[in-house]
């Protein structure tokens, strides 16, 4: 059990942007909200999954919708707590802790805000091990925890309680609700026991985000190459392999807020000996990177676009023409690469007609 410091928050904002692989929303807004709560004297306590008793209730909280909406329509701040309280009432049981469903992007910070506002501890784990665009793309769901009942709340306090035949249909219905709510809403879902947390979650991903941010920050202070430092640090975690797959200049960004997501693609013209144009397909997150039609990295492995020199991760909404970037791909933990997991959030889950090939084998 440990308390989040302001420096941790700063590092997490960077690390979560990296794990967001372009999507998940800029953690900056989430960081500011947690920071504002901490400035008022509130604290955030983090629990290791092993510290959570088996028989308690954990209710994860998150934001859903388009990151391009979030940078404009900032929440009122009450939405996610309202969802959690509504779900407690529906289940007739109090939550022992909250937890992220997604460790990439702003959803690494929403549970921290809920923790600060309610006093509930936050479990250091999540169900995506990165960011994904859809709510059924969870190790929780793959391993048998149900997403429903789920609560969706907006800034007015309007809320919907969703029961659905499966988690994919939960996603489908809640996405519709979110669009009606203006493209961004706040949710509580995947309520589960402490035992299920230990069985189904990707562990220690909040602390991973902090470690990534800290690694990049310290490398810059010591004038080491931050990307090299990161690729050296990652194998000490569950994310055992990573490498640079492209260097170049952004020459085209096509982006559309549609059906509740940001859909689009980016073209990066190679430099420093990288010849050709890399094309990255985006659905909130970077899904697949190709050069001349040949796959260089593919979901669920991470595809992260970073500023070429400062190694700042660049989210989809801030990607723009002329930026000089490095593209890094990282292997996800084994729990996310099982055949059952790949059915849900491998290429097939995104209607991409390519087989999944681990990044280790795409050299």
């Amino acid at each position, binding site marked *: 059990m440990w308390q989040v410091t302001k420096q941790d928050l700063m590092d997490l904002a960077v690390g979560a942007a990296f794990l967001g692989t372009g999507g998940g929303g800029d953690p*900056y*807004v989430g960081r*500011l*909200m947690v920071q*504002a709560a901490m400035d008022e004297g509130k604290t955030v306590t983090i629990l290791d999954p092993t510290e959570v008793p088996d028989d308690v209730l954990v209710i994860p909280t998150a934001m859903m919708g*388009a990151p*391009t*909406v979030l*940078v*404009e*329509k*900032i*929440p*009122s*701040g009450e939405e996610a707590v309202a969802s959690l309280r509504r779900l407690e009432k529906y289940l007739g049981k109090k939550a022992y802790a909250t937890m992220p469903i997604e460790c990439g992007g702003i959803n690494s910070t929403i549970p921290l805000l809920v923790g600060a506002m309610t006093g509930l501890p936050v479990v250091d784990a999540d169900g995506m091990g990165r960011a994904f665009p859809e709510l059924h793309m969870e190790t929780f769901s793959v391993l048998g925890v149900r997403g429903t009942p789920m609560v969706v709340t907006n*800034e*007015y306090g309007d809320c919907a309680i969703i029961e659905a035949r499966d988690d994919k249909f939960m996603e489908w219905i809640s996405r519709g609700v979110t669009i009606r709510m*203006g*493209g961004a809403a706040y949710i509580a879902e995947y309520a589960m026991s402490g035992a299920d947390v230990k069985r189904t979650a990707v562990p220690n991903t909040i602390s991973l985000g902090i470690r990534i941010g800290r690694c990049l920050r310290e490398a810059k202070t010591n*004038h080491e*190459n931050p990307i090299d430092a990161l690729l050296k640090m990652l194998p000490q975690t569950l994310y055992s392999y990573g490498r640079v797959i492209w260097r170049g200049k952004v020459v*085209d*960004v*096509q*982006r*559309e*807020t*549609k059906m509740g997501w940001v859909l689009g693609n980016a073209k990066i013209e190679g430099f420093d000996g990288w010849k050709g144009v890399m094309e990255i397909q985006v659905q909130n997150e970077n899904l697949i990177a190709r050069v001349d039609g040949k796959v260089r990295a593919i979901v669920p492995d991470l595809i992260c676009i970073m*500023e070429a*020199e*400062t190694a*700042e991760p*660049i989210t989809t*909404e*801030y990607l*723009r*023409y*002329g*930026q000089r970037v490095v593209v890094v791909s990282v292997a996800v933990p084994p729990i996310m690469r099982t055949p059952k997991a790949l059915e849900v959030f491998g290429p097939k889950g995104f209607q991409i007609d390519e087989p999944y090939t681990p990044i280790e084998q795409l050299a």
Partner: protein
Amino acid sequence: MIRIGIDVGGTNTDAVVMEGERVLASYKASTSADVTSGVSEALAGALKQSGVPANLIDVVALGTTHFTNAVVQRRDLIPTAAVRLGLPATQALPPMVDWSPDLRDAIGGHFYFAHGGHEFDGRPITPLDPDELRKIARDITKKKIRTVAVSSVFSPVNSEVERKAGEVLAAALPGVHITLSSDIGRIGLLERENAAIMNACLMDLSRGVIEAFRNSLEKNGITGRFFLTQNDGTLMDAALAERFPVLTFASGPTNSMRGATFLSGVKDGIVIDIGGTTTDVGSLKSGFPREASVAVEIGGVRTNFRMPDVFSIGLGGGSLVVDGDDGVTVGPRSVGYRLTKDAHIFGGKTLTTSDIIVAAGRADFGDRSKVKHLPPALITKTRARIMEMVANAVERTRLSPDPLPVIAVGGGSVLVDTKIGNLDVIKPKHFSCANAVGAAIAQISGEVDRVYRLSNSSREEAVADARERATQAAIAAGARADSVTIVDIEDVPIAYIPGNATRVRVKAVGELAL
């Protein structure tokens, strides 16, 4: 073509006269409290030295750190009301939430939430409530606030509500200045709102300063076109700069870096520009300042302007030196333009870095006999502190261990030695006027902002058309055709207009045809 470049810093005002690539004359004057007389003196001095008659000057390009310094030093800022439309959304993070408290205090920290704003698809979040705005206006009147910044959720997608709110407030607040966020920034509510608030709080200063510049030109008989340099290093018309002073932010560093590469011939290196109040450190890549990638902080405020990645510290030739219990402190306060009155070497009573450097025999200006009494230990300690500050700033900017040269420019560069750490320091000819040279050779831009209906053309065709139009606009404005490049393309699909439309913004930039 004959051009004058002027740089108005907090301490010095420099002017250069250039014909093509040749610097005909350069002149350094002190920045005056009224700004006008300093600019007039520099202009007259440079013109006289060059022998060029005033009526032959085609273009005057002026760069100024005046507005940036005002924010950095929290002075000449007027109390401002921030009005944000979007209730009940956005309350989690009120306007100015991430600002340094002292800057927020300097402009009063007044903000109001109101209904209004749009969803991403152009639907209203809540309808605008004119009565609510009039009530806010009454409170603004009561607080005697004379400048207002209005921001609205998704105003870059649909600025209608923001404009209407501006009209309601203008009608209720006669004589009050109103800045609309959609006139300044792009997507990103907090950053766009920050820029709008900073713009509004600079309004008094901007009106006074631009008017003063105009008077100086007139007095010297100059009739050429008058531009200011903006944050991306290109020129903007003075009338536009008067309404949007925030767009001149960080033009100083761009000018000095472009001037430094022009004067030294070094294409890759680190530039330190030491003025009277601040030192800016940035890195040059292929002759251009390295751009900040995501968000840039100015005076502790996050913005999303396109600007060079520059690190600034409060060190300059006018920085105050205080020998206290915890050792010597240098800056961030500076005597600024009062250097020639307040510093010891000019008969004043304030100890500045200039006094120390003259006492050390590293420079010769003012009256050296006035600093004879300074203890050698203080001189040594202060110089060590100065070099430590500069070295730290250079280290922060350096992104690789490669031994790049450091180009030192600006009037205050007498403060530094010939080596910073293991890096060689180059001081090119005309080094003290590099900013003015950079302004004189500033680039020309052409911009296009159009809505294309995609029913009869593809997105690719629309973007290609906008690129061509922007390129032609830059050439028409005086850019050399073979140097024009596209620096920014943004297309925002407009979901709420039936028939699939997209708004395309393209900016093309080129070298001035000399």
